């Protein structure tokens, strides 16, 4: 496969919602492309339609106008959705929840199960393997969600602020691990967040969205020259602060 294969293509996408006989556009004329293996971050203010965009990509919502094209072949190979709040099945244990993705794809075997257990202890959840998912904390649940998503070897990953409910320290660790995994697996990722720093660290591309009706006002391509693999140390790169300022200005402009 060449580097320039396009996995996701969105053309002039608009989504209209109807509420109490009033209608409004959540998204209005969104255009972008995501290439294979690219990590595509979307940042924007709350309520700008980030989640709507993601749900439309996933096919949970239908576009009002415009087109969403997602590579069928990659979709079949493995598509995973990491939701905003963890949605573990409450009747399953932590291990059983983590294995769900592999199970659905019929790829669960002894080796992969061992890898899964290894990951669970790596994320500090080894002692909780047999706990039902109702018996663990919110942050733990989010970690399980991440383990589950990564374990199934996703080709397409759609994330809706998956780290929003995780504490500061854990968040950096998870970010580092997450980027590492996505990079080696060449996962095509769409990652929605309102955290600019997270976007700069993770993204190959960062799309900045406007207030509702959501439009993409700018796309950046961060190139961090120092420690690009580490969520904390990457801040030593001079580009980091520079880009932060630019995106900050874009977002602030929305409020004025």
């Amino acid at each position, binding site marked *: 496969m060449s580097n320039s294969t396009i996995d996701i293509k969105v053309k002039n996408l608009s989504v209209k919602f109807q509420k109490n006989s009033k209608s409004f556009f959540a998204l209005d004329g969104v255009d972008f492309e995501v290439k294979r293996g690219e990590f595509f971050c979307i940042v924007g203010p709350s309520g700008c339609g980030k989640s709507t965009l993601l749900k439309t990509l*996933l*096919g*949970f919502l239908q576009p009002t106008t415009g087109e969403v094209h997602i590579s069928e072949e990659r*979709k*079949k190979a*493995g*598509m*995973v*959705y990491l*939701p905003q*709040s963890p*949605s573990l*099945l409450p*009747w*399953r*244990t932590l*291990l*059983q929840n983590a*294995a*769900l*993705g592999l*199970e*659905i*794809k019929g790829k*669960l075997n*002894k080796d992969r*199960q061992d890898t899964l257990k290894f990951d669970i202890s790596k994320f500090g959840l080894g002692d909780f*393997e*047999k706990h*039902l998912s109702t018996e663990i904390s919110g942050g733990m649940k989010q970690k399980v969600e991440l383990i589950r998503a990564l374990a*199934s070897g996703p080709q397409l990953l*759609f994330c809706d602020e998956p780290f929003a409910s995780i504490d500061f320290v854990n968040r950096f660790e998870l970010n580092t691990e997450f980027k590492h995994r996505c990079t080696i697996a060449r996962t095509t990722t769409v990652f929605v967040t309102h955290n600019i720093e997270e976007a700069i660290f993770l993204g190959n591309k960062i799309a900045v969205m406007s207030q509702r009706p959501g439009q993409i006002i700018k796309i950046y391509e961060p190139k961090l020259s120092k420690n690009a693999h580490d969520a904390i140390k990457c801040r030593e790169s001079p580009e980091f602060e520079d880009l932060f300022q630019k995106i900050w200005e874009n977002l602030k402009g929305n409020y004025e």
Partner: protein
Amino acid sequence: MNNKHQKWKILFIQTLIILLFALIWEGLGRSSKNIFFLIGTPLAVAGEFWQLLIAGNFIGNFFITGAEAVVGLLIGTLIGTVLGLSLWFSESAAFIAKPFVTALGALPVFALAPLMIVWFGVGFGMKVAIAVFSTVFVAFNQAYKGANSVALEYVDTLKGMNASRSQIFQKVIIPGSLDWVLSSIRLNVGFGLLGAFIGEYISSNEGLGYLILRASNLYNIPRAFAAAIGIIALALILDNIAQFIERRRYTIVQWISVPPQLWHR
């Protein structure tokens, strides 16, 4: 410790209430011949119970009624649950089916009882059929509501993994509605017994209902009460079994929706 203490205290008070009740009943029954004719006395009931036990094939009749109820409630619950859950696959089928099911469920079983004789004869099968009829709609409604009460986010999670409809059904819909299905089993213990009973009332030559019916025809009130004790015992035993199954819900979920290699222990 305190908890255990409390338990004994409750049991003591409950026993006291029963004794007091029996005492008043005994006194009332002995006060006049007419009253004895109408309500009997606890001692007379105990005597009849003993008679039934040693000479009246109480145990045999007990098991016959039990079998009618259990077979009927198993078949009824199974059919109702399968149909109710599978309506999840098609929203339009559900909309079409719903009023018919409600209408059939609203029909009292007694109304169809004579037909049951025509269709299923007067034997064991007829009682089972009535028990099926009285349980199937309860199971159907519970399963249907259960399947629709499963949180959309769980379904979306699996959709996000590109899961097939049948995978979503097996791994989310069935486990997610299990509480509803299990409580339908418990509800159906009562309805199944009632169905078996109605069957025995219409036509029978065995079973606890038959014992009650014959005893009342002979104005042997204590004997009717003695047989009624059998029904209470049957109801309690079946309810306990249903509770036992309810407590095993986690194990049941594992069997149905989790591959064996992921079972703990």
